[in-house]
């Protein structure tokens, strides 16, 4: 299983994660698909995405908005890509769109077949068991405008991922409380940080923290 979970931040901050992403793909001029969280202004996001990854000599990209109907021809090409990147945005909207488009199973299969799946912020949360982290803590959450109650997601990893983390007492209290009540651990990563999963190996980039059973530890 090859995954890259980006927290956020700019190109410079994400340089290490980007290199890891390219290494995971391990192929010359791969096909990379960008799945935006919403089609609204997705063309601009796509352009920025292409500009960024073109620096790594990638020139084959597919834009695949999933909250508008699509045909099976393009879907086939997407699922044959070498890597798929899930964009950032509203996690609830994104999950709802992926579920409506019946893509959750297809993405899992894609990963099982050896495809590299990366995600930024909302896109990274989507890779976990559920999108609880989009709704938590209360002071820093996405708005559930689509009103979904089933928050179960791709479930590709056995941890929760919290992006855009700021090391503060507020977050500490919230995540200690959460992990005391639930068995999952939370990996909290600041912008520029993230996690690279290569089968059983987890590599942490940036000043990340783990919350488990009510405790907090820095990841060194």
């Amino acid at each position, binding site marked *: 299983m090859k995954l890259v979970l980006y927290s956020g931040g700019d190109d410079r901050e994400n340089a290490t994660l980007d290199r890891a992403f390219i290494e995971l793909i391990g192929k010359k001029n791969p096909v990379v698909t960008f799945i935006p969280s919403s089609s*609204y202004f997705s*063309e*601009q996001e*796509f352009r920025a995405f292409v500009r960024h990854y073109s620096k790594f000599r990638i020139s084959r990209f597919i*834009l695949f908005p999933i909250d508008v109907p699509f045909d099976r*021809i*393009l879907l086939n090409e997407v699922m044959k890509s070498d890597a798929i990147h899930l964009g950032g945005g509203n996690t609830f909207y994104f999950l709802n769109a992926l579920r409506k488009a019946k893509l959750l199973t297809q993405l899992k299969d894609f990963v099982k077949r050896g495809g590299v799946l990366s995600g930024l912020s909302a896109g990274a949360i989507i890779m976990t068991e559920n999108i609880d982290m989009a709704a938590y803590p209360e002071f820093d959450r996405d708005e559930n*405008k689509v009103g979904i109650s089933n928050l179960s997601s791709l479930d590709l990893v056995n941890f929760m991922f919290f992006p855009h983390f700021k090391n503060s007492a507020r977050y500490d209290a919230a995540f200690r409380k959460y992990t005391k009540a639930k068995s999952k651990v939370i990996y909290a990563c600041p912008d520029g940080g993230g996690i690279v999963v290569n089968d059983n190996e987890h590599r942490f980039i940036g000043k990340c923290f783990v919350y488990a059973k009510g405790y907090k530890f820095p990841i060194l």
Partner: protein
Amino acid sequence: MNQVKKSPQDEGVKRSYSSFSRLSGEHPFKEKVPEGRVEYKARHKKGGKVTFFNFELARDMGLIPKTHPAELNPELEKEILHTFSIVIINEYDVINDIKFPEDEVLPNTYMATRYLQLQHPDKTGKTSGDGRTVWNGTVRHQGVTWDVSSCGTGGTKLSPACNLNKKFYQTGDPSVSYGCGLSEVSEGLETLFFSEVLGKNGFKTERVLAIVEFEKGLSINVRANPNLLRPSHFLGHLKQGNLKNLKQVTDYYIDRQIENKIWAQTTFKSDKERYAYLAKQVAKTFSEMSAKFEDEYIFCWLDWDGDNILMDGGIIDYGSIRQFGLFHAEYRYDDVQRYSTTILEQRQKARYIVQCFAQIADFLTTGKKKSLSGFRKHETLEYFDKHFSECKNSNLLQKIGFQKSHQEILIKGHLPLVTRFRRSFSYFERSKSKKGIYKVADGINWNAIFCMRDILRELPQIYLARQTHLSQEDFMEVIKSSYAKKNDLKITEMRRKQINRFQETYSAMIAAIEKASGSNRSQILLEVTMRSSVINKYDRVTGDSITYIVDKVKKLRPKLSPEELFQLAQQFSSYQNLDPDKKAVASVVPPRHKNIMQGLYSIVRDCREGL
């Protein structure tokens, strides 16, 4: 008859928005073309409130300072109401000696202009023109003079109702609709949303400056454009053979174009050269406009009277304007007595208008009005045909997603290839359903079955990824629209050939650019992919979607301030900006608007292939 009310200047009041004072009825057209207008006294109309004000346009026009926030302060609101809340004192009022309070009557007169209109019985323009519109005046800012007119300011004697029924109507008379002289908020909103979107996408168009609302959904809709003259302003005088008036209106128009620096050539050796240049400009404008309408699926009911279009090819009167999602080339609007033209017939109507301008140029030069048929093969029309064809090619290359320099490579060095691709493209674009012609809500249609935007958006991505052509079955899967039924999608021998030709010529164009530009195939396809994803966006606005959006906005409107309506129109037009070179990054949308905008997007999406 009535006393006049003093304006704020008369009272020596200092006005922060002093440019508004230029919109009090005075207009150079009155003096330059005295017989081209009818003048009306006017009075203040009470009970108006500002529903919408276009801060961006007002800044461009110099009505408010460049740094003015998009906020309607009490002073600005008062100025807008003072300037635009007016109703004319028409013939009915005068004949029936209706008295109005002296302090409500305004000092200046306002003009309604005369122009040719097909629906008038005399068909020469002697009785027709602005039926419910008066011109407020002009403002000049940063080298551009803007015309401002207001619709819904009372019934004039130039309305069709007056002339068909040979009587004058009181403004607001419920027995006539159009002839009553009023307009509705929904008309203003429709024009607002449609014109802002089309304006962002490179169409010339009238724009809504303000909507002043009154009881029962009525409104005065204020429009602006650097020149609000239509071909019909000329064609009436031409039909009548009135050389004096024709010359006056033509000279007035030319002076404005030069003053606004629209024309490249500004000095002429003779009148002959000056009027020939006018005819050439009309040919250029109308060939570009009709090609763009055809390629962007804009239905604009063009007819020989030229009253549904501005002289610069700008769209005016959005009542019958539509943008189709597919090339529904057989759609006709049912106007009770007759059916409209179709999209494909627009070119001929535009050409006919150009022919009239060749005749006008000759008439003005020689003083003799020759038969229109004598200009059928005039060089201006040859230019029209040639330029139309050039525009069709460049429009298609733009639509595919080629950048300007790559378009030039193809146009200059590979025209036969472009033409071959265009033929194949048209074959699919014009394919129609086996269902045949059927009635729709406001006319008739024969469904197009293929969505060219979808194939143009997906093809470069698929080629990039798989580097081989699509199979015929896969091609049909991508290009089919929701209008296509199973029996519309049979892969006949002809269709097989066309699918192959489409893909072969597409790839050949990429190869030609590769050879000439030094970029490799992937780089070219990637650039086309990114541009095409904007140009051929999945959800593009249609006429139907605008109708539903206006319904939705109308329902929301009691809670929407003029500022919020302005922001919504801006956000919506920005989202529908399909120009890859000018597409802006999404602006931050206030939380309250997010839900509204989501609602508007889903309307656009649901109606994307319709009329």
